[in-house]
């Protein structure tokens, strides 16, 4: 199983996403934004970071990178695609997911261990979670407030496309506490929190059991592997 992680200029969590793929049991493949080549991968991760320094709008310039032509084709034909943070912003800019992300409600960058509820376990990236599972995933961004028009929100809610919701605290003013969404088919998922930073004991968020022991993010990647095996 080969999962590609695309590096854009300004990508920051690309090596972390590769590590998470490896810890989940798949082979990480480094992809370069400037090439029209997916190197035969089975799934794609758009990692976090500040591609192009967040100039213009977060993810806006990266969504026009050469490789995005191939990503859009693959996503439209059903390949699992995960956008994390800046990757989520790219997916909305590329119109693979609806809505957009705006400046956090309090205005500043926020880094915290964030509780989420998994709202939809029928996607390529969530199928190994229990329905309604409560998980802790690190959140770190400046522009994470999810917005969309009322009609889009109604559709996302109605069709079960809200994949994750913030629990206890809405850290950025997202509408309906939405932390992540999927497309109707469920192969494309985007979220602001960083599952790749909750995949290795000792380096994840604190849990009740022990400090930095949270590995809830690993299930995102094992879900993708499962989806690919059962496809």
């Amino acid at each position, binding site marked *: 199983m080969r999962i590609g992680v695309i590096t854009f*200029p*300004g990508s*920051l*969590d690309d*090596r*972390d996403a590769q*590590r998470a793929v490896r810890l989940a049991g798949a082979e990480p493949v480094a992809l370069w934004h*400037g090439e029209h080549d997916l190197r035969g991968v089975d799934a794609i991760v758009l990692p*976090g*970071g*500040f591609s*192009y*320094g*967040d*100039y213009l709008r977060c993810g806006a310039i990266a969504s026009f990178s050469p490789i995005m032509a191939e990503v859009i084709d693959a996503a439209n034909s059903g390949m699992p695609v995960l956008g994390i943070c800046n990757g989520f912003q790219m997916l909305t800019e590329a119109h693979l997911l609806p809505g957009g992300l705006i400046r956090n409600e*309090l205005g*500043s*960058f*926020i*880094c*915290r261990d964030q509780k989420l509820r998994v709202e939809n376990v029928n996607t390529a990236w969530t199928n190994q979670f229990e329905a309604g599972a409560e998980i802790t995933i*690190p959140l*770190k961004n*400046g522009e994470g407030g999810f917005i969309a028009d009322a009609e889009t929100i109604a559709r996302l809610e109605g069709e079960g496309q809200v994949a994750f919701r913030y629990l*206890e*605290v809405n*850290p*950025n003013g997202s509408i309906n506490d939405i932390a992540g969404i999927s497309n109707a088919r469920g192969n494309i998922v985007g979220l602001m929190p*960083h599952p*790749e*930073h909750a995949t*290795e004991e*000792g*380096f994840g968020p*604190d849990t009740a059991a*022990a*400090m*930095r022991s949270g590995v809830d993010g690993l299930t995102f990647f094992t879900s993708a592997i499962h989806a690919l095996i059962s496809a």
Partner: protein
Amino acid sequence: MSTPTTVSAADTVSNAAATPDRVQPFGALGLKEDEYLKIREILGRRPTSGELAMYSVMWSEHCSYKSSKVYLRQFGDKVSEKMKKNLMVGMGENAGVVDIGDGWAVTFKIESHNHPSYIEPFQGAATGVGGIVRDIISMGARPVAVMDALRFGAIDDPDTARVVHGVVAGISFYGNCLGLPNIGGETWFDSVYQANPLVNALAVGVLRHEDLHLANARGVGNKVVLFGARTGGDGIGGASILASDSFSAGGPTKRPAVQVGDPFAEKVLIECCLELFRDKLVEGIQDLGAAGISCATSELASNGDGGMFIELEKVLLRDPTLTAEEILMSESQERMMAIVTPEKLEGFLAVTAKWDVETSVLGEVTDTGRLVINWHGEEIVNVEPRTVAVDGPVYNRPVAYPAWIDALQADSTAMLPRASTPDELRAQAVALLGSPNLASKDWITNQYDRYVMGNTALSFPDDGGMVRVDEETGLGFAVATDANGRFSQLDPYRGAQLALAEAFRNVAVTGATPVAVSDCLNFGSPENPEVMWQFSRAVEGLSDGCLELEIPVTGGNVSFYNQTGDVPIHPTPVVAVLGVIDDVANRIPSGWQDEGNNIYLLGITRDELDGSAWSDVLHHHLGGVPPVVDFAGEQRLAGLITAGSEQNIIASAHDLSEGGLIQAVSESVLRFGVGARVWVSEIMQRDGVDATAALFSESTGRAIVSVPREDDVRFVGLCEGRGYPVLRIGVTDSGGALEVQDQFTLTIDELRDTHRGTLPEHFGPVVGY
């Protein structure tokens, strides 16, 4: 196609020779008259305006260390064989490099960006991070962590919020966008920093031994290549005008001397440089920081074959109207200069093109022994590079013992009233916990990414930050910074040693073994003899301490002129200590995770309240003599905790410093929300101190550790075997409170609200509180 530009006519070498009497603005450039005359003597003529620009920035206090050099030599002189053993690169390079085993090395350095951060807090702090990170890259290392030591004015002064918001946002903006975890640091508020905040930025990088790069220009015919951001008009004279002078009321605004940062450009530059290193395309490399091209060319040439020829018009510009002198002095950020062999130039340019990094070949290494710079075919600089970069002026500034210090030391805390009831002690503990310097810094640290890179094993609020270096073995490093300006004001020799002892202890309690030191020495004007006395004593104290601990100073920075008008800041030597840990899985957090663990106090408590947080917060008092330092004891304490960490019998460890025992115990409760019952009667009895001293004294060489019951016997045996004083002072529990037996009780909620409330009250809300 060429862009039409008007080329400014530059002052040429032949013109300078022909017009010896031209009046030159050396004073406006920060040079003293005797320095200007010295330049004329070196050159045998008047300098060209370009040469004058170069000398003025390179001979500035910030670049030349002219007032501090005679003292800083002690760091190189006071060294034992053990201190040299693992030191791969010592002081004088962009950053020191330490061998940490298995073919790995760590490079780290702390540097000031104080003055720009007052004028323009956001950009000043942002570019402070950017500058120190480029120092790390230029050693051939991948930057892997940052932290900051910050000092602001009084928390309730109206101007403090402006500086705090700007500085924190600047660090957050730049560091987060670079993808470097921010793993610690410290923040102080004190009115002595009101118009002169301190922003000291630290960065750490890791490299394989074979990737080590140095800043030298060797090999005649090798190309001199400038790459990264374009050169603009920002930061002109930053080193000479800003960092080497004091602010005066009513003076001209100095904002144009502050650089503007673009972290995206720097992130791309990091990846580009690492690819250049990987493919072995670079012979020598230097970052452009203070003094820009003047510094990079003269230092590279001085450290190499000595000769270099540059065509300055080849520098890519953001603003085509810049003059040659401005280009030489510009401190535009995100630029690097490399020495590349002609055969590898094509490969070099392919890598910079891949990363969309603009590159221009400026010239080459020569065997003339001269640094020659042309501007559109005319020679505007012709100097011996060492006279610019190395052999600058050295001053033995007048030193005077401050007459006021005897009275200050005589005014001890012995006269201050102490609490006489448990209720009073309780109120004092709460006042300290919520005081600005001891309150939670979450408002700041929640704006920093601590996760990126996936190797952060410890970060704030633990005592030191820790990062894994090798994913296979778990090899890692820990780092902590400390300083206490109040102690240094009372006694700069001991104040510097206390900073060293505390940083050393903060690293030790994480389970790592301290191996190296970097320092950022923040002082007032060197032209004030009393400040020079403070400086000389601090350097002496620090170098003596390092020799005793046998850990070398690998580099650092001096920041003078930290004062407003005639009033200098408290001497603030910030000390960063780096430690190594064989496996970060053995790291020790600062707080209690489990109920039913025994709590032990290591070390002896003396009645040492002079200069303490207790005297500051409750009595607004500063006087007396700071706590005693015992480096041999610190070493034994560190060895004990390392052994405990390796045997996995210590569940947590937290150093005792500002605020004393009660502050440390409260923080250990708050770390994971586990309560405790503690008692101080045995401390009072054994050490002959009262409850106030037991709770608030800041005696050194102390830490509290928690130990699972099943490891009790082994732990006590370990302490006894090493002859270190140990006393069981409590037990962790599920009671949801901190009970100080026979004295008072504080619920965890009360502790948390007190600790967390202070910064948000002044600066705005924190998500989730």
